[in-house]
């Protein structure tokens, strides 16, 4: 409910800051529900992930459309087509991750180390990419 309220306020008042909070709250609520029901990653986690991205993309797109401007007619079609591809790609990636997670591998210190290293590498990649974006912005 809080997530929907945050998203609604963001769209109503053209407030981009509220969108990631809405998405985060939706993610937290999903994971909490899984925890509460004692479930592991269900069949719908990948779909939910793609849905979160779709919600985020549509929210940012709608904010950009609020500004009064003449738009090239083909832009909307291209953007919609790109969004479909993006959602399909993210669904594929999320499904792949989910399938990997289902592989029964017993935990071992080596495996934990690999997981930590992978996560750290991923975090480092995100940080460097974000830093690159920050540097580009001067």
């Amino acid at each position: 409910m809080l997530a929907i309220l945050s998203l609604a306020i963001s769209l109503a008042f053209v407030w981009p800051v509220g969108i990631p909070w809405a998405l985060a709250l939706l993610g937290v609520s999903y994971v909490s529900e899984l925890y509460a029901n004692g479930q592991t990653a269900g069949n719908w986690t990948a779909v939910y992930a793609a849905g979160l991205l779709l919600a985020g993309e549509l929210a940012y797109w709608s904010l950009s459309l609020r500004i009064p401007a003449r738009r090239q007619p083909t832009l909307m079609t291209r953007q919609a087509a790109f969004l479909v591809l993006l959602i399909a790609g993210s669904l594929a990636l999320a499904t792949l991750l989910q399938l990997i997670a289902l592989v029964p591998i017993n935990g071992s210190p080596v495996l934990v180390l690999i997981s930590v290293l992978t996560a750290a590498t991923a975090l480092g990649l995100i940080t460097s990419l974000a830093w690159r974006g920050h540097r580009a912005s001067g």
Partner: protein
Amino acid sequence: MRDAETALPGLRLSAFATSKLGAYAGLSAAGLLCALVLGRVEPLVLASPFLLVLTIGLALVREPRLGVALRLDRERAVEGEEVQLEIELRAGSPIDTVELWLPLPSGVQAVDRHAGMVLRLNDEERRYVSHPLRCDRWGGYLVGDLIVRASDRFGLLAFETRNSGALPLRVYPRPEVLHSILRPAETQAYSGNEVSRQAGEGIEFAEIREFAPGDQVRQINWRVSARRERLHVNQRHLERNTDVILFLDTFDEITNSRASTLDLTFRAAASLASRYLERRNRVGLIGFGGTLRWLTPAMGLVQLYRIVEALLDTHISLSYAWKGIDVIPARTLPPKALVVAISPLLDERSLNALFDLRRRGFDLAIIEVSPVPFVAPGSTEEEQLGYRLWLLKRDTLRYRYQRLGIPVAVWQQGEPLDKAIEEVRAFRRYARHAAA
């Protein structure tokens, strides 16, 4: 004209991260951390799409290469007309989204009311975008400020620059249609459309007198000659031109959200100048204010353009220095000129200058651009009393001018200028009859 071979000046774009980049980076990091801390894969799966967008988006982003040029289809327009602002874009690389924002000066606005345009450019594409502008208010403007923002498909980084344009656009006031103008008391020696008091060759009948050597045979009035048994000739009024000086009081300006006394002053000046110049008169201009401006009287279309350009360049500049009409060059106020003063009758210096003009024998008429509609009476009793006293003071001032034989006609916003002109004409007619 478009020159396909001209290289457009490239824009220097500054990159900045959009809020989407920060949001997706935050969500990705949060998902990864949660997955590590909780030891569950679900947060990682939920964060993976955002991570995918970040990775691909930032890896593929490149600084766009873009050139821009702006042109106006003309530099001069009349109030209410449209001009076309053409924007030429040349992309040195494919750009998914280009946003163009045109901040326009007050007085000029986009016809379709849109603040900007969004389009896409392919590699090496040259695009021409036409943006019609409507000139709402007269004045001199600089058009061509342009904000350009380019972003990639993912919307993570944007590249922006501001192009300061300096395309001059001069919007002339739309003159009012005047059905009558003030006729001068005296005319000049040159041929024109004004009926002179002198008799001679002309169209308008003046009198009949006895034939004198040198008179033309065709001037003989045979009927009167037969009746009086002596030759008589018709005399007609000469048609001469006149000198008209437009005396504009630019010391003060009272405004509201829609207009100002200076607006009305300039509109009246442009209308009168246009009408007098059409009738082959010489028209001069005096902008009597903080900055003194003048144009010596001249004829023709060129003089009309000079007068209108001078009006566009005139603005209120505050000054507390005392000024009399001595500062006005003598050649700007030729003798026997008709001086039409357009003034809100607020500043003491203008009021005294007008009295001085009359004392020096100039044929003077005043069109009072009424500041009353621009002033609210006030809410308190003292304010309303002050307002009424101010109105009384203005009535007294008008009476003082009229006692000296100076016609004063009040012209308010929304009224035709013809009405004020007719009031002045009626006063002068009455004054002439009273004097006779």
